[in-house]
């Protein structure tokens, strides 16, 4: 079975879940996106003391003027000796080489980590892990596990990001129409989607909480506790295969199409 890996909302929650998890995935303050709760370097150190594997998300698109802050953070993380950096921007691969960093990398280009060939490309470049896209079928995930040389992460629980923009879509709307309250959800055709406009841009999340209860072929099973009540999250982690909440398999059995004619 894959290692139980969690995205937590706070150090306190991390401590509370300590005995139920194998790894913590921590979004880095200022350099991550799609996770409402982020962690500073000193907070990451505190989680490391819990004695579990620790992976750090640096998953925002890196703008040219953010390279210095990125370099600075990569050097700091190197000293922490974490188990890996979960990256989106290719600058991180280049900087690992230039700065001679030893920390392992996890290829996680969110919706683009979709085949074993590309996972193997990155493996051959020294990237030992791939964090798979959530838009894959179970058969595709199994084939990747079989044919890719890397270790794999997959999402099995939590809200999923569907859209990430540099633009401040909620703020722009509020500014245009002089609305004072902050938009937190959007609605269409019977479904509500969380929307989060932060200093790094806007993210929109799935209307449902992914809740896969079956066996999955992956080395790391990721449970994302963001925007989930802590009590519920803990309940799921106790025995995820038999949790009492609604099963939601996302795209596991729903192959997307792209040619409609």
């Amino acid at each position, binding site marked *: 079975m894959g290692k139980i890996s969690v995205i937590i909302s706070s150090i306190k929650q991390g401590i509370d879940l300590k005995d139920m998890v194998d790894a913590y995935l921590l979004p880095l303050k200022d350099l991550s996106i799609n996770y409402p709760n982020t962690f500073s370097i000193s907070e990451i150190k505190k989680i490391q003391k819990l004695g579990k594997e620790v992976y750090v998300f640096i998953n925002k698109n890196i703008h040219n003027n953010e390279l210095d802050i990125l370099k600075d953070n990569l050097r700091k993380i190197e000293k922490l000796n974490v188990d890996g950096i979960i990256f989106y921007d290719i600058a991180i691969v*280049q900087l690992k080489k230039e700065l001679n960093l030893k920390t392992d990398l996890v290829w996680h280009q969110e919706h*683009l980590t979709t*085949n074993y060939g590309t996972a193997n490309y990155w493996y051959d470049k020294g990237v030992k892990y791939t964090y798979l896209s959530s838009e894959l079928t179970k058969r595709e995930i199994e084939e990747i596990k079989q044919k890719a040389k890397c270790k794999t992460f997959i999402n099995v629980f939590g809200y999923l990001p569907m859209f990430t*923009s540099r633009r*401040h879509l909620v703020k722009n709307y509020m500014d245009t129409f002089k609305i004072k309250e902050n938009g937190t959800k*959007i*609605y269409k055709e019977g479904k509500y989607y969380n929307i989060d406009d932060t200093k790094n841009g806007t993210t929109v999340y799935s209307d449902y909480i992914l809740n896969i209860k079956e066996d999955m072929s992956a080395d790391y099973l990721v449970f994302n506790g963001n925007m989930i009540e802590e009590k519920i999250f803990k309940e799921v982690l106790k025995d995820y295969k038999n949790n009492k909440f609604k099963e939601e398999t996302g795209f596991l059995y729903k192959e997307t199409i792209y040619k409609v004619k």
Partner: protein
Amino acid sequence: MKKPELLSPAGDLERLKIALLYGADAVYIGGYFNLRANTPNFTIEDIKEGVDYAHKLNKKVYVTVNIAMHNKEYEKVRPYLEELKKINVDAIIVSDPAIIQMAKEIGLTIHLSTQGSTLNKKAVEYWQNEGVSRVVLARECTKEDIKDIKEENNIELEVFIHGAMCASYSGRCVLSNFLTNRDSNRGGCSQICRWDFDLYNEDKKLEGEKPFTFCSKDLSLAKHIPDLVQLNVDSLKIEGRMRSIYYIATVVKTYRKIIDEYCDNPKNYKYHEEYEKILDEVANRDSIPQFFDGNFGKEVQYYNGRTETTNQDFIGLVLEYNNNLAKVQQRNHFKIGDNVEIFGPKTNIKFKIDEIYDEDMNRIDVVRHPKQIVYLKVPEKVDKNYMIKCIDKKKNV
């Protein structure tokens, strides 16, 4: 001063030929494994014909192979790349690194697609080291970003100058997958970002005068061409592989003029507002410089709903010319008395229609039928593929 390449989209062979005729130095097209799965696209035979045609004019053809592959595409893509190599395409535009690896092995020239969301000089450096010869920068790059990236790397840069924008970072949107089960990163994008939504603060609906949408205005860098030339950008790219021949001709011709006027005489160059007006006439939405000038505040949003402009002012395409008569294929209704303009790559002729003949040379007053062939008396010599627009017809918004 180096004159940058003007790069046009082309959805089919007709548009490819029009783009090159109206001044594009190169075109980009889609065959298989590209992000416009629901357009006719080019067969291998079409691509070969397009490449041969362009090469005779000393121009170039780039082929987009820019999907994020799933396993089944990964297993099929290599033979296609080998075919592209055989027919001598000038480059392929790619985002998936596994395709980059294959293209290197096959010996194809590689351009990194904007789907790679390349925003910084370190990412560019990585791709340069990987054998990529050109990077299409992310549309979120500012003028300062482009300057710094160009100065620090010895690689060709391509920048979008005109057309529609993704509301998301390219590649970071799967709204289509979730809401319509169509894979946006394999060419199935159903443009959910153009939809209207209701915006809530928890349980309270927030009501603006117009509905909430992600929709962005379009991009136009017409005013900034001198900046881009000075930044030493190698290729200026127009978006829109699904756009009409009329749109392609109008936009390509306008940018050709701006680029040539500036590069041929930079000291005395003056930007003409008229160019903006011409570009606006064929646009679907308002256009602004977007991220280029660092502005992505409320001005970038487009809240005017889904109504889009159709170019009903495009009334006909010239097929041939003989003895003051242009043989014309109708594209929209027109009649005797209409004030029109015929334009070619370097020509504009305004006149009032006073004689129209049907295919049997009977005089007629009105041309109603789509693609009807008629003969039109014109005051000056015109050529095949000149276009006729009715200047009485306002934009149909």
